[in-house]
């Protein structure tokens, strides 16, 4: 297993929103998606994933529906709301600005 990479504060929400922008997914699916897409580099702290989902649901960024899983169990599927889509745009822009600024400091040569 790869070394755990500490997530920057606030990036979890952005990752979840981005993941859901590809389509509805249950909680485990979200965790796996992030893990797989980042080639196992980002491993979500599961302890913070679920509270984050509930929090975002309350904010109206995502909504849940009961569905049936691949294993024939009742499970909640999360999907992005239009509010969540707008939020994602904002967070992506913020992230871009943030990384650009950090890069500038790190790779500045004088």
């Amino acid at each position, binding site marked *: 297993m790869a070394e755990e990479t500490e997530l920057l504060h606030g990036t979890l929400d952005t990752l979840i929103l981005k993941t859901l922008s590809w389509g509805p997914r249950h909680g485990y699916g979200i965790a796996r998606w992030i893990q797989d897409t980042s080639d196992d580099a980002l491993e979500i702290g*599961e*302890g913070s994933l679920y509270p984050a989902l*509930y929090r975002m649901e309350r904010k109206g960024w995502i909504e849940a529906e*009961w*569905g049936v899983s691949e294993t024939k169990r009742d499970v909640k599927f999360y999907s992005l709301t239009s509010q969540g889509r707008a939020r994602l745009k904002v967070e992506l822009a913020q992230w871009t600005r943030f990384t650009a600024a950090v890069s500038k400091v790190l790779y500045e040569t004088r």
Partner: protein
Amino acid sequence: MPRLGRFRRELRWRFWSVPVEREVDSELAFHLEMRVRELIDHGMTPDNARAAALERFGDLGRITEACRDLGRRRNEDMRRAEWLTELRHDLRYAVRGLRASPGFTAVALLTLAMGIGASTTIFSVANAVLLRPFAYYQPDRIVRLWETTPVTQTFSVSEPNYLDWRQRVRGLSQLAAFAGRVASLLGDGDPQQLNAVTATPSLFPLLGVRPILGRVFGEEDVKPGAPARVVVLSYALWQTRFGGDPGVIGRTVNLSGTSYEVIGVMPAAFVFPGNPEIWEPLAPSLSAQRGDRRLGVVGRLAPNVTLTQGLDEMRSVARELARQHPESNGDWGANVTSLEEWLVGRELTTRVQVLLVAVGLLLLMGCVNVANLLLARATARQREMSVRAALGAGRGRIVRQLLTETLVLAVIGAAIGVLLTTLAVPVLRDVGGTAIPRLDELSIDWRVVSFGIGASLATGILFGIAPALQASRADLNDVLRSGGRVAAAGRLRSVLIVISVAMALVLLVGAGLVGRSFERLMRVDYGFRAEGVFAASLALPNERYGSRNQRAVFYAEAARRLGATPGVRAVGFTNIAPFSGGSTAMPIAVVGRQPVSSDEFLSAAWRSVSPGYFATIGVPLRKGRLIAETDGEKAPLVVVVTETTARRIWPGEDPLGQQVRLGGNPTPWTVVGVVGDIRDQLLQQEPDPMVYLSFQQVPWSSMWLLVRATGDPMSLAPVVRREIHAIDPLLPVANEQPMSRFVSQIAAAPRFTALIFGLFASAALVLAVVGVYGLVTYGVTQRTREIGVRLALGATPSRIVGGVVRHGIELAGFGIAIGLWAAYALSRFMQGILYDVAATDAVTYLAVAALLVGCAAAASILPARWAARLDPVRALRDD
């Protein structure tokens, strides 16, 4: 994973029905299960996989708890949002429904607004005048004490009697005495006449009021022999004359030429009869004349002593005093009345109570009519409701929608009603403010507003929803087949209309009685002519007019100067102007006649007047002569009596030359003339015995100046001021007004009642007519088929009209019969405010009944003619 789109809302409902605990548990369990599978797929043993998954997850208990908590809060938010959405939906539906039937909406709104507006306004009046507690400490323990004669239950008290009461009565823990006086405030600008009250130091603690500034006077200010010259200011005087300056304490003011030190200022909320502007200490003395009764006395009942017990003790003390001082107290007793009776009065109390009952009836009528409208609407919509129920709308949903509709109706109706109240309250305050005690503090009472809204809501729920519920339960087939006819609702509506007509009749009878009484009151001949007379009051300060002669000379000179002024027809002085609110009275006894029983005790009002007084206000001379200039201080004492006095004391005899003793004084007065009676206290009160004395022989220090003008009386005001100030530039000329204002003010309370009753009765009549019209119309639409059949079988249109109108009159007839009985039963409560009309006056009852029958017939004719013009073929094809 299916997308459920527009059913998402319903799904979410189902979703919420899963408790949040199970939601979180199953979600986390699923996650762990998937993780375990994943690890097993990677080659772990199930046990190891399980342990690894748990370890990786973290503190399961803590995370579960955090998720549950967030989930619960999420559900609350969503439920609230859902509720608001549905409410918005219901509101839109309700408004659409109301707008679809503008006739129903307008009538219902107007009815509610009228009921709520009127009841709120009148209750505000009742609250201001009657219900609002007096701003004293434990006001229900405060009583007013009086001396009594065999003919008067409320007479002022003499100083020695007050002191004896104070010493002897155990049932009263505190006693205080006060007396009004007029003072002129000198200093910068024009002299200003003030209403002063002299009061014993015990008055303020007895009432439980404290000054907002400085102190009130204490026993040290009224030490016998050297009363301190101190005054307490009213809040109003402090504001107007001293600009609210907190440094006023310790300053001196000049009252009628004497310096007084200001020691305190009373709060604005402190009210006292006569609205005194300045307070001076009073020290009653045992050496004052026991027969000279001028003090007002208040007391506070001792703990656990009732008013009746207090009265019993006061009477026995009065009997003791009568034994000890037979010459001055022989025929005198004592009386105790409540604070309310003193400050508000019994007549006004009755008036306001009658108005309250009337407005309650109007509110009830409003509710009954709205109930009727809602019933009609519910019946009409029964088909709609049944269809909706059949299509699966839950009963809760239907009820909620109807409730919203009623709510919208009640709230808008109440808003209009409150708006009406806010418009009416200032008008009423202006109309009755000065003439009706405590009305100047009239304000809208929000408790009443909420009562009105509550009443209309209750009506809505009772009559709007019950039938709807019934409809939602009814068998769809039944309702569709019977064409929406519901006999039970029809019967209930008939009952409501009968009640409504009955209440209208009660209100109309009340209004008729009050109106007739007011009309008679306005026609009362009060024995003088107030029109064209200018009135002003003068108060000669003791300091400059100490002797009787000085006062007499002043009045004579003023009368002479004013009499010579152009535009003046006559000038007169009197210590009490008719209807100005004051009174002076004393016992009167015939010389040489011993009063054998208390039946023969006589008390007479007395007035000190100048010779010109009679001509000025037009009191006719019947016999002998009037008071003359020659009736001076040294001349023989004379008295002019009224016809009633003459008839009471000397029936069948010639009063001229007879001699009387006044106020227990041994000196005889000779009757020199008889003049016409006047009413000068209340319009409705028969003239009491009255005697006129010469202003020179009884030169009172405060007098009303009455001047009859050739033109507009108020144009004389500057002339009068100029002439008075020519004699004494420091003397204030106060209370300048046309004398006719006294008369209109004395009629203010009856006019107030008549006006409001008139408005109520008109509103009630409209409501009753609308109700009868609505029900008869409804009856016709229900019987369309039957009428069609009858027309087809050859019934003449006039027969149809007759039948329908008869139905309307029958309805009204029932209501009228019940109303007549109710009005008769309630009438005795009204007798107290009626003048010269019996509360059971048959003419009024019959006239009102006839009016209602006529209106009911008129209200039925419209639907009746519509019925008669029905096309039988179409009527039968309907449904």
